[in-house]
């Protein structure tokens, strides 16, 4: 049984730049995999190769053991790209019907629209949709063919917290249908919530391939920022932080235990203002990892 998606020693050069360097990845049917990495790591390039949108400079990209440009293979695959477009003057239900017609056994139209939460906008023209609604439309188009494998390239980029949360739930709903899902993201939290396996990519090379818990222990998941005039790095000794940067009075640190860190600081009476706790963008985490 060939794997659902496979890169075999794949290299991709754009001119002089090597976006992927000899990457080998095997994804079996039924796996839910997140490809995690900072911007420019090679995630979108990997997806482009697997979808047959680009050809590897050397090595191979295969879907179900076949060339990804094969139309029969494509009829089992659903796609949500980072850069995408749909005709502005079609209605939502019309374009969902159109994309459904590309597949041999599509989902019922209303089901696909419901999975994206666009029931109210089913009769609206595409150009009337907001940014977040458009993203959900792309998701509907990705799942409407009832694909065996779903590729999502940075699906929640540009969304606000609430939008992201509900979108992740929609992806999870699809994954529960026992499909193969390959998603790329630069948010560790997203990878953790959705995937059973996280492949970490940086600068064109796979640097980790493990369940989320294991990855989390290596990479700090939360970013804490505040202003504290009287704080120096020494004051943070002994706290569970993996990276600290203090510029003027602005403190930024990465940690997996933000509550513990803050409790300690408050107990010591450290004066803090403008506190912000957020999910660590992998940018932050990787910068921290490579600078140590």
């Amino acid at each position, binding site marked *: 049984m060939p794997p659902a998606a496979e890169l075999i020693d794949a290299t991709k050069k754009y001119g002089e730049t090597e976006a992927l360097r000899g990457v080998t990845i095997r994804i079996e049917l039924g796996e839910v995999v997140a490809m995690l990495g900072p911007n420019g790591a090679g995630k979108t390039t990997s997806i482009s190769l697997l979808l047959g*949108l680009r050809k590897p400079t050397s090595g191979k990209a295969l879907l179900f053991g076949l060339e990804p440009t094969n139309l029969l293979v494509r*009829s089992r*695959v659903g796609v949500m790209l980072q850069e995408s*477009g*749909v005709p502005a*003057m*079609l209605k939502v239900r019309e*374009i969902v019907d159109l994309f459904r*017609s*590309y597949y041999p056994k599509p989902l019922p139209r209303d089901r696909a629209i419901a999975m994206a939460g666009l029931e109210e906008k089913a009769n609206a023209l595409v150009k009337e949709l907001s940014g977040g609604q458009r993203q959900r439309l792309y998701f509907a188009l990705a799942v409407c063919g009832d694909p065996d494998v779903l590729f999502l390239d940075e699906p929640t980029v540009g969304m606000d917290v609430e939008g992201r949360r509900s979108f992740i739930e929609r992806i999870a709903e699809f994954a529960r249908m026992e499909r193969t899902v390959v998603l790329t993201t630069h948010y560790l939290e997203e990878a953790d919530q959705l995937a059973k396996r996280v492949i970490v990519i940086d600068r064109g090379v796979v640097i980790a391939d493990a369940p989320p818990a294991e990855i989390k222990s290596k990479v700090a998941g939360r970013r804490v920022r505040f202003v504290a005039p009287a704080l120096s790095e020494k004051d943070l000794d002994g706290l569970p932080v993996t990276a600290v940067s203090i510029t003027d009075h602005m403190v930024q640190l990465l940690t997996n235990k933000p509550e513990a860190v803050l409790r300690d600081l408050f107990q010591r009476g450290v004066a803090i203002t403008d506190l912000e706790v957020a999910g660590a963008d992998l940018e932050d985490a990787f910068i921290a990892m490579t600078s140590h």
Partner: protein
Amino acid sequence: MLVQQTRAEFLKLWRVPAFSATSILLPLVFYSFIGIGQASQVMQGGHVRFGAYFLASMAVYSVANVMIFSFGISVATERGMKMDLLMRAMPLPPLVYLLSRCITAIVFAAMTLVVLFPFAYVAGDVRLDASEWFTLAYRVLLGSIPFIALGFAIGYLSGPNSAVAVINLIYLPTAFASGLFFPKQLLPQIIQNIAPYLPLYRFGQLGWNAIGYPTSESISTDWLYLAGYGVVFFAIAVWAYRREESRKFS
């Protein structure tokens, strides 16, 4: 798949009044302003009246216009929206995609003729044999094929905003220079010398000949010129397409 795609392509164009309304109404506007006034004027060489001459001109104008615009603009805007990337990843066979667009363009072209012909009959008092009406119609549809290739070429070579500008800036003056509005004899000498080499002129000849207007060369020459242009435009379109392929999809 073909039915759905054709339906979608049709709606995409139909719902843009700048295209659909203009394609159908503009020839009528031209005919009203230019054709009706002189409609009964008998032209050089015999029994053809200007009303009929101008009908042939407008049929040629509107069909070539539909072909260039529908292919040129839809290709250019889809590239601009990055829609081509998504379509590329779909299990849609490229041939179905192409065919659906051709069918849509032919439907629009037929629509313009279905509106234009009765209008000329009523407002311009144009009376032709059944065979003349028919010959005009099929020549106009067949002869528009090179302009499909031209539309593609423009679509792959221009961006979404420049495509509209390029087409508008080039199309109308060329139509004038080709004798579509005023017969070639009435144009400045320099233009008269260039006209026989313009594809719209050759296309026009097919139309005028169909309604009985005497043309200086045999229409086989016209078909030959159009075929030649078709090959050239097709080659440019293929080159531009391949260039796009290697830039975006290699």
